[in-house]
């Protein structure tokens, strides 16, 4: 965005110098200059207070006191960009990264629980996640850059609500649930009910805090796959992300269950239930995968995007990613294709 403005600004002044016609659009020039200054060079963000609570109740109380004029910040890698871009304005930021007890990855009963403060780097490096939910480790390792991964939280990746978020897509395939706290208490929401629209989820970051994420580890008869299509291997937005979890019926060599999450093919991270239903009970064979992949793209409607590629291209690529993802997951579940 800022680069586009910069280019416009330069070409405009270049033309103005070269042109023998008198300049008439001074107001336009002034606005362009201001936009350039605002976007590219404005240093501070407008903020009255930066609060650093040490407990969850303290943090929730701070949010409540500001009555919607404060916002939660964790790693801040999205929030700071949005504030500088003036997507929204706040009076205070409540930094939740020093709250005790939100930074761990652990087994609780039969589930893996990630604290709300866990970063992408931590998740990608965690032996537990790599062994029991490898697709999430891969997604977290693909997000942003090393400097972003070392502070950006997985919870933040969810709350930002982007349709192709690298951690959100595998978590959606894992049927993860999140716990959301506010001064009214806590509630648990499944990720299938979590995303509302681009940039919008059921969490209101002006009043609520996503405190933990939990999901079942993959069993021995289950496998997972994460695939990402992007222009470069580093620091690039994905053109497509696909995460798959399958359960293999070993006795019958059939697919007992499958979860296929895709993005960005809709305004929110997308689970294609119809494809998932259609695949249940089918033999675990390459023919099945081919069939499912052909059907998959019909349910997806990616937009034409200069950044991410055309709809036609990406619909073709959905087929490829779904097929490869399923194959990878089945092989991990112990199936020989």
């Amino acid at each position, binding site marked *: 965005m*800022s680069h586009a403005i910069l280019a416009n600004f330069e070409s405009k002044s270049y033309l103005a110098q070269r042109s023998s016609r008198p300049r008439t659009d001074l107001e336009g020039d002034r606005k362009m200059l201001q936009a350039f200054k605002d976007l*590219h*060079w404005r*240093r*501070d*963000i*407008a*903020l*009255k*207070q*930066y609060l*650093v609570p040490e407990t969850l109740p303290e943090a929730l109380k701070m949010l409540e006191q500001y009555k919607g004029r404060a916002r939660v*910040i964790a790693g*801040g*890698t999205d929030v*700071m*960009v949005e504030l*500088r871009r003036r997507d929204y304005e706040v009076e*205070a*930021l409540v*930094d939740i*990264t020093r709250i005790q007890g939100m930074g761990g990855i652990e087994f609780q009963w039969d589930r893996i629980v990630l604290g709300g403060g866990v970063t992408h*780097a931590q998740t990608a490096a965690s032996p537990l996640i790599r062994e029991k939910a490898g697709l999430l480790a891969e997604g977290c390792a693909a997000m*942003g*850059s*090393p*400097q*972003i991964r*070392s*502070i950006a939280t997985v919870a933040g990746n969810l709350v930002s609500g982007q349709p192709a978020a690298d951690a959100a897509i595998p978590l959606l395939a894992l049927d993860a649930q999140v716990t959301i706290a506010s001064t009214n208490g806590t509630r648990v929401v499944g990720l299938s009910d979590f995303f509302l629209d681009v940039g919008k989820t059921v969490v209101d970051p002006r009043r609520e805090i996503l405190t933990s994420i939990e999901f079942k580890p993959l069993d021995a008869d289950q496998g997972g796959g994460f695939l990402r299509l992007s222009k470069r*291997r*580093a*620091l690039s937005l994905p053109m497509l992300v696909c995460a798959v979890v399958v359960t293999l019926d070993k006795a019958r060599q059939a697919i007992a269950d499958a979860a296929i999450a895709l993005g960005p093919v809709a305004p929110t991270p997308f689970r294609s239930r119809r494809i998932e239903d259609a695949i249940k009970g089918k033999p675990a064979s390459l023919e099945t995968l081919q069939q499912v992949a052909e059907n998959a793209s019909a349910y997806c409607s990616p937009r034409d995007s200069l950044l991410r590629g055309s709809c036609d291209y990406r619909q073709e690529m959905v087929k490829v990613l779904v097929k490869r993802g399923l194959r990878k997951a089945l092989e991990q579940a112990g199936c020989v294709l």
Partner: protein
Amino acid sequence: MVEVAVSPGTLLVDLLRENLGLTGTKVGCREGECGACTVLMDGEAVNSCLIPALKVQGREVTTIEGLQKPDGSLDPIQDAFMEAGAAQCGFCTPGMILNAKALLNSNPDPDEGEIRKALSGVLCRCTGYRKIVQAVKNAASGK
């Protein structure tokens, strides 16, 4: 250890450059894409353009200036960059060196893939990556 008063909306990169005069940390894109502003926060590489200054209260921040030892000698990575001619315009160099530092702290003997991955969050617009990767290899092997 320094004590500075800053306004709540100040970013770490501006605190370093404007208030403390540590201009070795560069400002490129201000949105976490280029990595020129990389510093180490408690040993981990982060983009200082995305960090509110108040987030680093009580934490250790290492900038490129901080790699120089008290006796004036340079960090082996800095020496290796000079030896290999790994700087062209020099703008990305502090970010490259600090990401390399974070890598070598946790993995003293990285292979080329690990080095490239560790440097993947810094853009060199001169496209001089080959010598940069070589310099990090040399620093790791003590050449």
